[in-house]
């Protein structure tokens, strides 16, 4: 009998205690924000969409090798002896034409492993996090600055150059 009334009593009391808590919260200001209108400031270490500063990229392929999901694809073509590709901002000499530098953000896992090995700090994470697309192919970002014709040209140039070299080599071989 005592347990019976005790049950009723504790049930009512705990319900009232709970109701007090929720009533208090009814009048506390909300912790959420109106997202697309209001946005929270992001911390400076925010890890979101990658960005590659191609001016500094030397095409060393280290980021692609560090990537655990293979979302970075880099193709490079050696520059010809006469060509000057300029220098990176921290003084490294560029020696490769980067004909292809794509990052597939549908695959990217935002782990930041590609950022650390970069010798010129040209690949880094930005705070852009709204980049949804209707088509998955649109998520493949191409960072290479060369136009398609230029790329073709560079590849062609290098092919010709190496053929020439090959011929030269053959010639020298023959002559010897």
């Amino acid at each position, binding site marked *: 009998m005592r347990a*019976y009334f005790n*049950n*009723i009593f504790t049930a009512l009391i705990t*319900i009232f205690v*709970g*109701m007090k*808590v*929720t*009533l208090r*919260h*009814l*009048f*506390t*200001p*909300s*912790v*959420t924000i*109106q997202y697309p209108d209001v946005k929270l400031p992001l911390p400076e270490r925010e890890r979101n969409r990658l960005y590659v500063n191609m001016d500094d990229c030397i095409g060393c392929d280290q980021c692609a090798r560090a990537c655990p999901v293979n979302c970075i694809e880099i193709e490079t073509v050696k520059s010809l002896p006469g060509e000057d590709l300029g220098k990176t901002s921290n003084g490294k000499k560029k020696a490769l034409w980067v004909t292809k530098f794509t990052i597939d953000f549908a695959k990217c896992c935002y782990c930041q492993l590609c950022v650390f090995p970069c010798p010129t700090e040209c690949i880094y994470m930005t705070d852009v996090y709204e980049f949804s697309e209707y088509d998955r192919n649109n998520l493949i970002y191409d960072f290479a600055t060369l136009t398609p014709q230029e790329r073709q040209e560079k590849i062609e140039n290098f092919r010709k150059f190496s053929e020439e070299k090959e011929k030269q080599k053959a010639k020298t071989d023959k002559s010897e």
Partner: protein
Amino acid sequence: MIYDFLNDLTGSPFIAGTITALLPLFAFILPFALFAVLLERKVAGHMQDRLGPMRVGYHGILQTVADIIKLIQKEDIIARNNDKLLFNIAPVLTFAGSYAAFAAIPFSSVFLGANIDLGIFYIIAVTGLVVAGILMAGWASNNKYSLLGAMRSAAQIISYEIPTILVVLSIVMLTGTMSLYDLSESQTSYFWNWYLLGGPEFEIQKFLLIPFMLIGFLIIYISTLAEVNRTPFDIPEAESELVSGYHTEYSGMKFAMFFLAEYANMFAVSAIVVALFLGGYQSPFGYLGNLLNINWLIPLEQFFWFTFKGIFFVFVQMWLRWTLPRLRVDQLMAASWKYLIPIAFFNLLIIGIISIL
């Protein structure tokens, strides 16, 4: 009564009857459902430190309108193995049950669909139709979760009808009338005349009655809460167990019908509580219309007070919903059969003894 008024106005009992029948639906249930759904979401939001709907209209006030439009547009999915006939009737039947109850709810001394002599009894009877509709929906869905939900719901509503009726009986015994109009009229326009505070008669009984009336009020509130399947008694549609119970398979307007019925029911049971214990449509502090000598103001004030009290109790239902976990099915039955019914019986007995003193 509104029927007589319309009968005089139009001269045709048929038109008057039709208008009287439709009035609660268009003047009250639909606007109330629109309002209550928004209120529910807003209350939930603010209690959880959120804001609730904010996009459609100022602070989201048109959100439910948008939802209704969405629901109307939605495809009405009927699965291949559903029992098509029953599947289509069930939501209508459920809504009809809760709609019929509104015929006897006294919104004010004028706005009262039918002054049935057995008003309160009638409301309890027609809500029985809801059970049949729910069972029908659960069975016709041909889904195990729906069937379990429907079974639980039926068992729950039937068991909680008993404490409700017992408490109603104690009031009926005290007053000798079952008409909601008479009940409301007898608790004249000051709050100390409410049955919650012992009724309108100033005698020693009034003070003796107060604690037992309070118990009766708690019991009827809890059991009506269970009858409309609200937390902590929302076992039939417990989303974490039964996905959403008997309306799992419903979509579009049929789902909206269940939803509408649920909200209409919420108000109907609050209205019962208000009419029985809290003076019905009577104002707690006297009427402005009497003070200013404007007669037509009084019914409006009464309507305001009735909806205000009703919506307050709907708010309490929501408040409870966002506070409490839900019971288990056997605990639910235990709560009714072991706690509410015996206490209601004793309460009835004691009120009986006091009333013959």
